[in-house]
């Protein structure tokens, strides 16, 4: 079973690696959206620092969500999804490998570039590590929860906007805690508690999420 898991992981990583646009575009989207805020609001440093946690987090949230729309669609078109569902292993095995691969090549880069964007949004340098850790803890949850929505809408041709309607309300806790941690750090207060809550949500998403994604895929396949 672990052999299949590794094989699925390698397949997903290879697929994304050979079409790097899927990996680069969410990152590009993230940078563009964040840089819209100073242009739209005003370049005043105090104001930017005030909205920075929310702006960076909302942009990260949208980037992850948009990147998920095609998560299962290409597999469905090529028939690989049906192979996955009929394979003699629990569907959770290839699904969890797929989610991990997706996070490694979209969520992780977002977390790595977040401090740079935070700095451009005039966040104090002392807060940037908290921002990075919060995005690091939050994006896997976003990937898993969003994948549930992607699994349920895989067979529908108007997936995009429906996916947003389904998934964005489910993203709210991560947004509240993620941006909240950064604001707390800005106020110079201890952030351990809130980071622990983000970790707890992550643990919940990781334990139940892949099962829900697998179930969603089965439902979409008409099972």
């Amino acid at each position, binding site marked *: 079973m672990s052999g299949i898991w590794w094989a699925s992981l390698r397949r997903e990583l290879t697929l994304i690696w050979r079409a790097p646009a899927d990996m680069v575009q969410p990152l590009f989207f993230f940078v563009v959206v964040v840089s819209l805020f100073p242009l739209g609001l005003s370049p005043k440093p105090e104001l930017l620092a005030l909205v920075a946690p929310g702006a960076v987090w909302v942009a990260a949230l949208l980037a992850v969500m948009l990147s998920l729309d095609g998560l299962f669609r290409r597999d469905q078109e090529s028939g690989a999804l049906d192979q996955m569902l009929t394979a003699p292993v629990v569907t959770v095995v290839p699904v969890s490998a797929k989610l991990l691969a997706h996070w490694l090549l979209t969520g992780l880069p977002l977390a790595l570039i977040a401090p740079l964007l935070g700095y451009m949004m005039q966040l104090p340098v002392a807060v940037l590590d908290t921002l990075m850790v919060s995005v690091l803890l939050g994006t896997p949850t976003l990937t898993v*929860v969003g994948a*549930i*929505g992607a699994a*349920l*809408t895989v*067979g*529908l041709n*108007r997936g995009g906007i*429906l996916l947003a*309607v*389904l998934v*964005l*309300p*489910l993203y*709210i*806790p991560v947004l*509240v*805690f993620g941006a*909240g941690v950064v604001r707390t750090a800005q106020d110079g207060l201890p952030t351990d508690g809130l980071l622990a809550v983000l970790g707890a*949500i992550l643990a*919940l998403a990781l334990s*139940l999420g892949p099962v*829900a994604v697998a*179930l*969603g895929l089965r*439902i*979409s396949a*008409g099972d």
Partner: protein
Amino acid sequence: MWKTIKRWYHQLGSPRYFYGFCNAVLPWLVPIALVVLAVGLAWGLAWAPVERYQGDSYRIIYIHVPASSGALMGYIAMGVAGLVALVWRMKMAEVMLKALAPFGAVLAAVSLLTGALWGKPTWGTYWQWDARMTSMLILLFLYLGIIALQSAIRDPRQAARAASLLAVVGVINVVIVKYSVEWLQTLHQGATLKMVGESSINDAMKYPLLISMLGLWLLYAANVLIRARAEVLSRERRSGWVRKLVAPAGGKGGR
């Protein structure tokens, strides 16, 4: 007693029996719900005493609280129905899940609207990002998400199962949302009605409130049964008993 409940559970799981059950219950349930709601509202809006600080404006509580509780209960009921539909693949649970959504969404909207109207005279603002208001807004989004997903999928069984999964995830989400916004400074008053312990509301105001709550819940139940009955008929339209029911020679025909 337990045996009766169990038999009921199995019988109501059958669409045909459920249809008969609805026909037997609804002629009573609808008038009773309307009368109870009318009594509660009339008592609350006209005869209950005036509140010392808020004056007459507090009377919107007789609509606001029943609507909010109904919206919340409806969503929890959808979560339970969703779990039953996913685990035991019970057809009627799928039907109930679909039937619960529209009225619940309306109640959430009513709760937000009346809350805004009540907020203006008492807090001085229509809207505030307070914990409970935010949670109710998100509840409304979740209701709309379920309705949207259901209407996007053509096959009714698949639509219901997809909505079931979303409802179960949504219930977990509602709980987390509630705690996630609670640490923001909250403006909302604490709960006045408590199951255990002393309620911080005068009896003369409490009883009409309880009656209007009961009335609205009954109305919700009636609405769910009406919607579920229609859904059962549409799903079972190829089965023998529905054909017989709607056949012109079948006596009274379909209702």
